[in-house]
């Protein structure tokens, strides 16, 4: 793909930022300081303006330095305010964020009035005009980025301890407060590096969104950091390419939408944590329970009538648990497919295998009832409901242990016989 010089710069800058943001953002996320980056970004504005006023140039280094100093000052003020007054952390962040930014706007408009003051360069620094990235900016970004990564690697285990159990770290004699200042400083650096690419408002997304996405895929911090950096970089690259290829699509917002999409996909589909999988698992369990209930119902009816051959009519079965015809059909189908039941016209009947399978469910139910009534001394009319739930949750091993502990009871509290354990082992799971 043919990239203009500018577009190439944007690509590099966005990718760099993405990687850095993801890394530091992971720590911010885990330390529950996601919005600190937002405050630091806003706080940088007056720093940039003052740097400009002092040096009179718009070269990246002094501006970076100014932003850094202001960001650090802002974070220290937040810490101090929370520590020394009754103001809570969220308010402190909001105050620093808005007041610093207000001061910055005042300075900006003041600069505007100066004879030489073409501040348009300055506010682009803040509002994410990625197209204004020049090679000098990229060089500064790369160097700072390398330094940040070096620190993260060097102090990885100490930062991990800081995020997880700061007090324990103190008890080990580690200088946790200094480490916290260092980590915050690294965060400020990344924020400042990212301002030009995505702007003040969106920088927090460059930090948090990739980190949140990465968290869904892994349970190990190291993997999370790498994945977060990767997602951030990929979103940065993709975002800048898309933005370059279509007109009137500013880079920052596109990057944010890309990483937000990755986040949503991660939330839904990540193995184990993914919401869709969780729902699926829940549904599978619910369906299993429905099927076992149907088996059991067929068994109980057969047991009561002492008749296993007469099939039970559809309406009859529907009435037992108040199910619709469709629900019943849905539960019956897998039973029939597995050979546990067979259809006989408009009715259902248990097969030999089905009877054995159902027996095991009934066994669990009745043993649990015995346990409840004997050990917990619940009256016999109270035990049924609990057993209805437990029969699906108990494993075969648990039931066998219970049976032994109860001395191999023969009947349940209602006098019904308790079926024996299936010889071949492995009843319902």
């Amino acid at each position, binding site marked *: 793909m043919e990239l203009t010089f500018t577009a190439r710069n944007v690509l590099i800058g966005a990718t760099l930022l993405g990687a850095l943001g993801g890394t530091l953002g992971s720590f911010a996320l*885990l330390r*529950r300081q996601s919005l600190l980056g937002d405050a630091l970004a806003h706080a940088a504005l007056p720093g940039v303006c003052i740097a400009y006023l002092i040096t009179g140039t718009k070269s990246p280094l002094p501006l970076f330095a100014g932003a850094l100093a202001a960001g650090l000052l802002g974070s220290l003020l937040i810490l101090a305010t929370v520590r020394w007054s009754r103001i809570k952390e969220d308010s402190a962040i909001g105050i620093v964020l808005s007041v610093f930014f207000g001061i910055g706007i005042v300075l900006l408009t003041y600069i505007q009035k100066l004879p030489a003051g073409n501040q348009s360069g300055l506010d682009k620094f803040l509002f994410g005009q990625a197209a204004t990235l020049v090679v000098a900016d990229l060089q500064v970004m790369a160097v700072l980025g390398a330094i940040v990564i070096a620190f993260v690697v*060097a*102090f990885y*285990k*100490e930062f*991990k*301890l800081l*995020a*997880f*159990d700061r*007090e*324990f*770290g*103190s*008890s*080990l*004699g*580690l200088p946790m407060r200094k480490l916290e200042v260092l980590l915050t400083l690294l965060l400020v650096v990344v924020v400042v590096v990212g301002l030009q690419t995505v702007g003040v408002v969106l920088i927090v997304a460059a930090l948090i969104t990739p980190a949140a996405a990465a*968290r869904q895929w*892994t*349970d*190990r*911090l190291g993997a*999370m950091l790498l994945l977060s950096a990767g997602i951030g970089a990929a979103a940065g690259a993709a975002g800048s390419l898309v933005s370059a290829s279509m007109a009137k699509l500013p880079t920052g917002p596109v990057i944010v939408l890309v990483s937000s999409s990755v986040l949503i996909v991660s939330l839904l589909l990540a193995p184990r944590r993914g919401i869709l999988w969780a729902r699926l698992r829940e549904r599978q369990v619910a369906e299993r329970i429905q099927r076992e209930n149907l088996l059991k119902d067929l068994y109980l009816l057969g047991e009561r009538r002492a008749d296993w051959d007469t099939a039970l009519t559809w309406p009859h079965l529907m009435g037992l648990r108040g199910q619709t015809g469709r629900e019943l059909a849905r539960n019956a189908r897998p039973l029939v497919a597995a050979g546990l039941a067979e259809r006989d016209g408009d009715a259902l009947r248990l097969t030999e295998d089905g009877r054995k399978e159902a027996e095991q469910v009934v066994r669990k139910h009745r043993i649990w009832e015995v346990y409840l009534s004997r050990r917990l001394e619940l009256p016999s009319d109270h035990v049924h409901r609990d057993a209805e739930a437990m029969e699906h949750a108990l494993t075969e091993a648990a039931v066998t242990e219970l049976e032994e502990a109860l001395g191999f009871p023969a009947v349940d509290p209602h006098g019904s016989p308790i079926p024996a354990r299936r010889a071949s082992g492995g009843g319902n799971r």
Partner: protein
Amino acid sequence: MNVPAIEVHDLTVAYRTQPVLWDVDLALPEGKLIAIVGPNGAGKSTLLKAILGLVPTVTGWVQIFGEPYERRRSWVGYVPQRESVDWDFPTSALDVVTMGLYGRIGWLRRPAKHHRETALACLEKVGMHDLAHRQISQLSGGQQQRVFLARALAQDARLYLMDEPFAGVDATTERAILTLLKELRDSGRTVVAVHHDLQTVAEYFDHVVLLNMRLVAAGPIATTFNADALQRTYGGKLTVLTQATEALLQNRSVE
């Protein structure tokens, strides 16, 4: 003469303008299981943290085996309260235990294989070997407590300070923890634990410290843990408990 494991003099800790610990003088012997008991807000956790230098003190000083804490750091292991940590953190049980070794591993170095092996051994000692690689959010309360204990064991300390190690654990874990603590004591180490359950103090521990912002009493269970001292600690709101405790003490002496 035996150097006491912990010596505390004139310790006063204040939070903003309220005193939390006031003029505490203590000498705790080595090689014993020592309980710290007292009502809520009595400063029990604060006492532990003050000994560890985690909170600023208004006055007073602490010595561990005759030296200030900074010089004896490697001799002390800390087990904080379980609630002090976010258990949803992406890390495994083994990883948490390895953190106990960070002081030994030092700056800029990665945990080496033998560090991991030490950590694994500690997990084994608390019966958590199989769950070493389990994400900590998937552990039960009792298992999490055991991980914290294993982390302290990894520090291989002479003195252990524990904040409510028995809080919120199931009966089996409680027994396991007690067995472990007794093993530590029998091997000559000292364990000081903030304990919340008066019913079990006499049964589990050798010494007791009764605290209610000021030191009420401290000494061996037999001589110190009695109704009068409890009354003074809990301020007379204890009638049911004192009766139960009396009964408990009776039983113990009958044994």
